[in-house]
C-alpha cells in the first residue's frame, strides 16, 4: 500500500525517532570514550585512545572482564541444559502442577535483582555456616547465582520452540526405527537448535551485564565487570568508563551478529 506522501514522511520520521531514542545513549557512550578531556565537555578539545589504554592498565577492569566472562560462560553452560530439560518437562511430560512450575521457573525475572541478590547473600551466609566453606565472593557462588538469571530465558525460548515443533517429524523418526533416545538426539534436539542457541546468547548477555543481583555476592579480588565499573564511578568520573562500556557494547553486538549468522534471531525471539 502506498501512503500519501505526508503520511509516509511522518511514518519514516517516527521510525527514525525510535531508532534515535534507542541508539543515542549508546552512540554517546562510544563518542565520549575518545574525548581527550577528563571532565566531559563540548566541543571536545581533541580525540584520544588514551582511555582505552587506561582501562586495560587498571587491574580491576581487566580482571573484572575475565571474571564476568568466566561466570557468564559457566552460568550459560549450566543454566541452558537445565532450562532446556525444564522446558521439555513442562511441555512434554504428564507431571502435575505445570502452571505453578512454569511460574516458579520464570520467577527470577519478576523479582527485582537487588532483592534476589540480598536474599541470596543471606542464604549464602547461612549455607556457609552449615557447609563450613565460603560461598560469597567465590566463583561457585557467583555462577550459582547467575544460573538463576539464565533459567527463565532458556525455559521461555525453548518452550516456545517446543510448541512450534512439528511432532510428526519425531513420529516419522520412530516409524523409521529410531528408539526414543535416538529420536531426541537426532531429530528433536537439532530442531530445537535455534531456540537453544538464542537461549544461550540471552543467558550469556544477562549474566555478563548483570549488576543488581551480583552486587552483594562479589568480594575483593573477585569482582565482575559491571560491579567494577560501579565502584570506579563512586570515586571518579572520566571517559575510562565510557571506554570500558564501549568494549562491552561491541562484544555483545558482535555476539549477536555472529549468532544471527547461524540462527535467525528474529525467527525465535
Amino acid at each position, binding site marked *: 500500500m502506498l501512503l500519501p506522501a505526508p503520511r509516509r514522511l511522518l511514518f519514516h520520521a517516527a521510525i527514525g525517532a525510535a531508532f534515535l531514542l534507542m541508539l543515542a545513549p549508546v552512540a554517546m557512550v562510544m563518542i565520549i570514550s575518545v574525548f581527550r578531556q577528563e571532565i566531559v565537555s563540548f566541543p571536545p578539545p581533541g580525540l584520544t585512545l588514551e582511555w582505552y589504554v587506561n582501562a586495560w592498565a587498571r587491574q580491576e577492569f581487566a580482571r573484572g572482564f575475565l571474571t564476568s566472562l568466566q561466570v557468564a560462560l559457566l552460568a550459560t553452560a549450566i543454566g541452558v541444559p537445565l532450562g532446556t530439560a525444564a522446558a521439555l518437562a513442562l511441555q512434554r511430560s504428564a507431571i502435575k502442577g505445570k502452571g505453578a512450575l512454569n511460574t516458579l521457573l520464570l520467577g527470577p525475572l519478576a523479582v527485582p535483582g537487588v532483592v534476589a541478590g540480598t536474599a541470596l547473600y543471606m542464604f549464602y551466609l547461612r549455607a556457609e555456616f552449615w557447609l563450613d566453606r565460603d560461598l560469597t565472593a567465590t566463583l561457585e557462588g557467583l555462577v550459582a547465582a547467575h544460573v538463576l538469571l539464565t533459567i527463565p530465558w532458556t525455559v521461555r525460548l525453548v518452550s516456545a520452540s517446543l510448541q512450534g515443533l*512439528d511432532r*510428526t*517429524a519425531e*513420529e*516419522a*523418526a*520412530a*516409524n*523409521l*526405527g*529410531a*528408539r526414543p533416545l*535416538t529420536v531426541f538426539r*537426532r*531429530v528433536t534436539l*537439532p*530442531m530445537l*537448535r535455534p531456540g537453544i542457541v538464542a537461549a544461550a546468547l540471552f543467558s550469556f548477555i544477562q549474566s555478563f551485564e548483570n549488576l543488581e543481583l551480583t552486587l552483594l555476592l562479589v568480594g575483593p579480588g573477585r569482582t565482575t565487570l559491571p560491579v567494577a565499573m560501579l565502584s570506579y564511578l563512586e570515586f571518579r568520573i572520566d571517559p575510562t568508563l565510557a571506554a570500558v562500556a564501549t568494549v562491552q557494547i561491541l562484544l555483545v553486538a558482535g555476539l549477536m551478529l555472529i549468532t544471527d549468522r547461524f540462527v535467525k534471531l528474529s525467527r525465535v525471539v
Partner: protein
Amino acid sequence: MGSLVLEALSKRYGSSTAVERVDLEVAQGEMVALLGPSGCGKTTTLRMVAGFIPPSGGRVLIGGQDVTRAPPYARDTGMVFQSYALFPHMSVAQNVAFGLEMRKVGRAERDERVMEALRLVRLDHLADRLPRQLSGGQQQRVALARALVVNPAVFLLDEPLSNLDAKLRGEVRMEIRALQQRLGLTTLIVTHDQEEALTMADRLVVMERGRVRQVGTAEELYEHPADPFVAGFVGRCNLVSGRLEGGGFRAESGALLRCDSTGAPADAALLALRPERIRLDPDPAGEARITAVTYLGAQTEYHVEQRGTTLLVTRPTPPLGDPMRRLAVGDAVVLSWDAAAVRLLPAA
C-alpha cells in the same frame, strides 16, 4: 513384505469411542483405502497400525505377527505423513538414509539404496538440497522415498495428497499407485477424498463414527451401497425417502417413482439413484420442471422438480445446436430411468 490384519481393533477415549471393533485384512500387495469424513476414526486406525496410539482392544498383525503392543520403532511399517514430516535439518539424501541408518545398513549399501530410492521418485538430482528448498510435490516424493527405502512390510499413507494443489494431486496419485503396484506393497491409505480412494485403492473401507460401514471394490460400493451413508459418501446420489407401494416407490412428497422392488428390503425407506442414470428429455407436456442448470464443461447438471421431489440429473453436455443445449430453468421435461438402476435402502 507381508499382510496386514486388524482384529476387532478399538480405541476409546474415556466414554467416547474413536474406533469401534474394526476388522480388516489387507492381502500382500493389496492397496486398501480407509475412507470417511473427518472424525470417522480412519486416522486413529492408521496410527494404531503404526503404533503411535495404543489400542483399547483388539489386535494388529503384520505378516502374521502380533504387534499390538510393539512400539512404533519395532514395527516394520513405512509411513508417509500428511505434513510430510521431513527432518528439516537434514538433506534430502540424509532424510532418506535415516531409516537405513537405524537398521545399521553399511555406508556403501546405504548410499546405493538411497540413490535408488531417489531415482524411483525422480529426485536423484536434488539429493543435497534441504527440504525447505523443495516444492510441496517434491517434498512429498522425498517422504515417499524415505518410507520406501527400508522395504517396509506395510506401507501407510495418511492423507498423502491433501497438501498438494489439484493438478499435482492427480500426478502424485498415479505415481503412488504405480510404485505400489510395481513394488507389490501392502498398503493402507487414509483419505477423505472419495475420488482419491476410488482411483488408487483395490478395495475401500468406508468408515463413519468409528465404525466400518462397508468394505468393497470401488464398483461394489458405487453400484451396491449397503446403506444411505455409503450411497451419499461414495459418488453423488439422489436419496429420496418414502416407501414401497405396488411396483413403485412413493416419495414422501407424493410422487410415484419407478423402481425394481424385487429383492428390496421390506423396510426400504430410501430410494437411491445416481444422477447420471437419469435420462432427461424436453417435453412440453412433461410434468417435471427444471429449477437449476449448471454448466460444468464436459457435463451439465440439472435440478429437476417433479411433484415436490427434486432430483439431481447429470448429463454429458450436448453439442452446440442440440435442442437439449437450450434447456433452461422453468422448461418442462420428462425424466426416465431403468428400474434396475435404483437401489432401495433401509432408513439411515
